[in-house]
């Protein structure tokens, strides 16, 4: 049971604050005690600090402030996920730069509460188009309306988009930034160009509930395969750890009740023992499906049937570890030279992208390539890397007094001790690591059949299926951890 819910911006400004007081503390501070004949009891309630802070005039602003003060003043070894003050627990998640915070005074299930917070984040994203400081402050009325429906005196009523859309009256305010990209997708004389088949990247960030009068409501389905890859490579180049977390995400703008079938490739197999077909197949270790997915045909034909509610939904999650069928997208070859006399450290990094030339890694941080030294680490940002290309960087640092392996000459190729591992994080569109090879033109094999809706009641307009597979990865190469003296 939640006592309060609020959203803070990344700087700590309260954007949304909702008091769901059915808390006893609130009740005792509410009407019902004024008549109490005993002045002492009255005084107790008034002097009780938490009563005051909850019922204060500032409308809960001080609770939010208290949270932010605690968060920023937290000692390093404590986790900020759950914090307490008096007998109030603060539980929060960070989502797209916002803090979504719930307070409770009960010993509640942390999993359910965190799940609820992230579900709220998704819901708000669905209704406002995207989640961010700007969209929230533009849609304050809508957000409050939504929260009123979802949280009934601190208890969850429903979080399904289907149910909620009956109650929500406010329409989302969307600001459409002018984008050249939109223009470029319009072909000559309205002809379909190659580009118009590809949705602009902002297409998925629109509210689920478009206005009722809107004629041009498109029946669109966005299907993303997102994988997070974390890799650990030993200094001799062998893989120490490979971990792939994949998700099939669906964002549906279809009218509710339409059925959808997602066909996975027949070679898709789960677990180590199972093998299907002749080829190597796509193998994952573990799969879990959303509760709305019907799995009758999954065993025989690898077809997932579902009636997606409008909005975002994670259809399937899968994990794969250790045996990676496809090679890693990047290889890093580090070498370190260290001049002991002058304390000069030379780090030579060579990065090779083994992908086909057409694929690009997405922009990481900025348009410019830059390298900087800070926090005791060297950061090298690359905006994009062309497939099949090779990049190298030479970094020179003067580090006097670095301890090294003893008993060697002044200039040596042996790296000094205490040089940490190299870590690599990247984002790759149109590439997945799971299963077999993924060709960017055909989309990943994991989604090989087009979604077919077969509900007669719905007008048969061509639904566009947009596939945005993406790979986010983080590799840690411990390559330059050299031999020790």
């Amino acid at each position, binding site marked *: 049971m939640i006592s309060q819910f609020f959203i803070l911006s990344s700087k700590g400004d309260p954007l949304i604050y909702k008091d769901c007081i059915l808390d006893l503390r609130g009740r005792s501070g509410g009407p*019902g005690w004024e008549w109490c004949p005993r002045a002492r009891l009255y005084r107790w309630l008034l002097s009780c600090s938490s009563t005051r802070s909850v019922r204060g005039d500032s409308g809960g602003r001080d609770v939010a402030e208290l949270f932010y003060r605690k968060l920023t003043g937290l000692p390093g070894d404590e986790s900020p996920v759950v914090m307490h003050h008096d007998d109030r627990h603060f539980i929060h998640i960070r989502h797209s730069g916002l803090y979504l915070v719930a307070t409770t*005074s009960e010993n509640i299930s942390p999993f359910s509460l965190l799940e609820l917070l992230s579900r709220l984040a998704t819901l708000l994203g669905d209704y406002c188009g995207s989640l961010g400081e700007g969209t929230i402050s533009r849609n304050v009325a809508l957000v409050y309306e939504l929260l009123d429906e979802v949280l009934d005196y601190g208890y969850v009523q429903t979080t399904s988009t289907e149910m909620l859309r009956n109650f929500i009256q406010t329409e989302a305010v969307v600001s459409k930034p002018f984008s050249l990209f939109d223009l470029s997708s319009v072909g000559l004389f309205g002809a379909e160009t190659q580009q118009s088949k590809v949705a602009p990247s902002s297409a998925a960030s629109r509210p689920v509930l478009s206005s009722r009068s809107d004629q041009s409501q498109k029946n669109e389905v966005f299907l993303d395969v997102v994988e997070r890859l974390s890799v650990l490579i030993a200094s001799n180049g062998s893989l120490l750890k490979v971990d792939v977390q994949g998700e099939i995400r669906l964002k549906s703008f279809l009218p509710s009740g339409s059925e959808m079938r997602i066909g996975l490739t027949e070679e898709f197999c789960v677990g180590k023992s199972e093998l299907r077909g002749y080829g190597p197949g796509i193998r994952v270790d573990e799969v879990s499906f959303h509760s709305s997915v019907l799995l009758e045909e999954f065993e025989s034909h690898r077809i997932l049937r579902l009636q997606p509610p409008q909005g975002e939904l994670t259809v399937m999650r899968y994990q794969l570890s250790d045996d990676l069928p496809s090679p890693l997208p990047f290889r890093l070859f580090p070498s370190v030279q260290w001049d002991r006399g002058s304390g000069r450290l030379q780090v030579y990094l060579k990065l090779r992208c083994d992908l086909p030339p057409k694929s690009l890694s997405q922009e990481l941080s900025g348009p410019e390539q830059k390298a900087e030294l800070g926090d005791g680490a060297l950061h090298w940002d690359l905006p994009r890397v062309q497939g099949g290309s090779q990049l190298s960087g030479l970094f020179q640092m003067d580090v006097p007094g670095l301890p090294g392996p003893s008993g060697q000459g002044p200039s040596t190729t042996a790296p000094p*001790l205490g040089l940490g591992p190299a870590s690599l994080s990247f984002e790759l569109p149109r590439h997945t690591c799971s299963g077999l090879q993924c060709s960017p033109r055909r989309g990943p094999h994991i989604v090989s059949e087009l979604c077919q809706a077969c509900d007669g009641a719905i007008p048969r307009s061509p639904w566009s299926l947009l596939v945005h597979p993406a790979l986010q990865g983080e590799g840690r190469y411990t390559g330059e951890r050299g031999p*020790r003296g």
Partner: protein
Amino acid sequence: MPYLGSEDVVKELKKALCNPHIQADRLRYRNVIQRVIRMPKLDQWGQAEVLNFLLRYEPRSEEELFDILNLLDSFLKSSSPGVVMGATKLFLILAKKFPHVQTDVLVQVKGPLLAACSSESRELCFAALCHVRQILHSLPGHFSSHYKKFFCSYSEPHYIKLQKVEVLCELVNDENVQQVLEELRGYCTDVSADFAQAAIFAIGGIARTYTDQCVQILTELLGLRQEHITTVVVQTFRDLVWLCPQCTEAVCQALPGCEENIQDSEGKQALIWLLGVHGERIPNAPYVLEDFVENVKSETFPAVTMELLTALLRLFLSRPAECQDTLGRLLHYCIEEEKNMAVRDRGLFYYRLLLAGIDEVKRILCSPKSDPSLGLLEDQAERPVNSWASDFNTLVPVYGKARWATISKYQGAERRGPELPDTASFATSGPLIPEENKERVQELPDSGALVLVPNCQLTAEYFEKTWFSLKVAHQQVFPWRGAVHPDTLQMALQVVNIQTIAMSRAGAHPWKAYLSAQDDTGCLFLTELLLESENSEMQISVKQNEPRTETLNSFISVLETVFGTIGDIKS
């Protein structure tokens, strides 16, 4: 009452789940559970809520228990972590007499937990890691084959890395020790000093079992000559030597030279202790201590000076020739110049001890140099699953047991303090009593079926009217000593949901109080307390608006317990 799905039926079912009549009838109960869990409208929040409710039911027979477990089995495979963890908790509690079932459940929940541990949401990941640690306390080998899942990645926040290091430290076994140590060694040179130190302490923890490998790694770390690393390594060595005497030789060889890289108090104390206790094996120990004595005037930490005194005296016993002069200078400084009283007293004490003769000093100072049994004791801290089953899927593992204890103690104090409205959890918690409320319940052992409603608040006028319209249902006399403290009494009564309507001032003669309470069926209990000045007896008269003897008796016993408790406090 939380709202489940959209239909009132669900509410009804939930009520039924708490209805003792239905719980008494096994088949009916099973039907109700079946109906509830097959409700199509029951979303994940509803499921979590229902699982929470089922915790209150205690199956009567083994057969029934397994029936329920089979019915609920599908919840363990839910895609929502909240539901899976709720189901796990329910299973662990229901199967508290069947350890093999509990282990089975924990095996089943391994997959979802590991998935949550590597989930994109850091917060979920953190909560999952805390629960993994909780499980590891009871089943040390449970996650050993998945140790790679707990390797840290560079971009993770600090608190997750620290949890992962703790987990790694606990799941280590013969097969993965090499890889885990290799990984931990990588963390020791991390950019963040805190994280590096946590990793070194973790290696120290593993060293209790795999001593040789760990001591070798720690010795290598000394070669880095980094201050923050050296100080932690030396502290780890000190703890290790105390617990595992077999590594003393290796540690003594590693120590020379590291005094140059230690600046902080903790590290200095550890090094001086090691030099004092094992100084006879370290050739240059007297000279290192001599350096410390030279700089003792600029020493800012009294604890270091005290440690230095003890260490030098110990070393003097084994290597008198090299230490005599230094010890003399240190004692002189401590007694004549030192301003800190504790240090000066310690100096004087050692001085007088030396005057008593060297044999006396040996007898007193030469304590054992290690205590391997302590390490064994710590290993045995493996706790049974039942000790934490009721904490599973709550905030307790997330805060950590120790921190939770301080939090709930604080809250308990606050609740017993002036402000006592938070008693609803007590009244509604039913058979499953949260840990924190247990002691309070023990105060009321035989309150039976009586459940008093917390916020029953009558107006004084209404009370007066009702009081005069009813007849006295019960009168009793309790022994009582001394005067009444109205505040204490009012507080104690509030804890058991009895409300005070009016009360005389303290010390008034005769002293009177009027109380009211209401149970969950709506039956009112109005009570008058009367204390005559000369009597050592409290006379109570209870009036009831529905004549029911069994609840009346329980109410009287509640009152009796309260008076008994207050009497205890006073005496």
